[in-house]
């Protein structure tokens, strides 16, 4: 049973970990993606995340269930939307498993897959203006 949350609130890493940290699990591996202050040689003040929410939920659930089928793991994924400031978490992937190697593998699989399939986009805002990131491309955004 995978746990998927897409929301505009601050992500509570402890709470997400607790959803996969049952007594049968000897390992909990958590990846936290957070906003850094630079990107592509430019300063970043904050990032705005946009999603096709219904589809993103489905895709996140699909990849989490895929991981749970491949490894003996329980997966929880949370993604934040809207404005996320430097230093704050945009995504948390937490994987619980009896042993650590599966937890590491499943966690890496989930975050790598999420980045290429789930319909969520970032718009990086810095002193030089804003750009949309779309796959490997960046597209200059209009001004606010």
């Amino acid at each position, binding site marked *: 049973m995978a746990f998927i949350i897409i929301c505009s609130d601050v992500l509570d890493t402890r709470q997400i970990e607790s959803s996969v940290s049952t007594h049968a699990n000897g390992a909990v591996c958590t990846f936290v993606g957070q906003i850094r202050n630079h990107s592509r040689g430019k300063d970043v003040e904050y990032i705005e995340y946009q999603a096709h*929410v219904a589809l993103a939920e489905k895709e996140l659930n699909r990849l989490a269930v895929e991981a749970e089928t491949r490894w003996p793991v329980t997966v929880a994924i949370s993604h934040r939307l809207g404005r996320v400031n430097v230093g704050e978490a945009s995504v948390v992937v937490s994987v619980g498993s009896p042993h650590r190697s599966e937890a590491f593998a499943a966690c890496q699989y989930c975050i790598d897959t999420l980045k290429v399939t789930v319909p969520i*986009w*970032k718009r990086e805002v810095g002193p030089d203006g804003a750009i949309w990131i*779309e796959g490997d491309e960046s597209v200059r955004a209009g001004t606010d």
Partner: protein
Amino acid sequence: MKRYNFRPSFPADLRIYMLLAKDAQKACENYLAPTQQLQAGSTSAQTGGSRLIGAHMPTSGGLYRSLTLGAEIGCNVVQLFTCSPRQWNHPELKADDVQAFLHARDDTGIDFTVAHDSYLINLAAPSEEILEKSRRAFLMELKRANTLQIKWLVTHMGAHLDQGEDEALARLAQSLRQILEETDKLGYTVGIALETTAGQGTGLGWRFEQLGRILRDVGDHPRLGVCLDTCHVFVAGYDLRSRERYDASIAHFDSTVGIDKLKVLHLNDAKKGLGSRVDRHEHIGFGEIGMEPFGFIVTDPRLMHVPAIVETPDSDTMHEVNVRRLRHMSEGGGPYAEVTVSLFGHYSELSKGEPVTLKLPCCTTLKDALVELGALNDELKNIGDHCRFAVNDEFCELTAQLVDGCAVAVIPPVSGG
């Protein structure tokens, strides 16, 4: 078609972000809930007993292929060339080919078939030699059609080639009298349907009066009728684009030709305008005629028994769509599908984060919707090359059918995490 003015400004509209499953359990339930099914692709199943709607089908691989392919795309009437339309001399039909055709007819249940004759035939030709050649070729056309138990052979009325319209019409009437008499003696059942034409060059049959005169001159005959082509009559100057003008054009046809003489309908939209006399067929609803008139025709009680055939481009991909479009309207469906399109990534700025509403002909594919979207804004041209698409929250291919009220999402490459 509604046009929207996009403004390249960005109010970060949270409506697109929406909210927000607080409860992970709920997200899982959502995922597991049965997803809304797009309109089923199969159309051939429930066509029995309904209005005859079909297409001019290709015959490569054998004449019978027109029937099997036609059935696959939802036709319950099929038109075909019984031989190459750009050649004078043709070998006789082979018995095997006839058997295969009649078998396919019984298998598919497509009892009503129509043939179209060769483009070279001119039954009004001023040259004695061409006239004779045409009459002989036309007799062969009739023989093949009769052998295949085809109901009507559609033919154009020929051209006067600047040698006098009156004399040409007289020669045509003479050709038809002669041919009907000869084939009556042979006991043929196939009829001749004279097609309304676009009036290109010196072609005859673009005025209803010319058709009426021929029918009068030949004399009432059960095996002589008329085929009305919507593209041709429209570019010849008969408007169909409102209920009043449609009714007026049909009333004019009735008074000059007689609605009881109408045996076949060719339903094609027109690339060129009213009165242009340029014959270029367009997909139903995408041309100068537009959707509504086709709705008038396929629901007109006076025409219910007349088979309707599309002769539009891109037969391998689009005949199915055009046939479905006509059938949808014949069963009382609305002529349009209103579709909302949500744009994501940098495209969302073009519509200020709001969904765009497109009014499209009914039974449109996603691919067609993208063409309309591209017409709204240059940035939206060619988005099919690098974006994915979803309809009602399911990823889908460009061939997906869009139904009234559905929600399309444009998904550029993603960058979450």
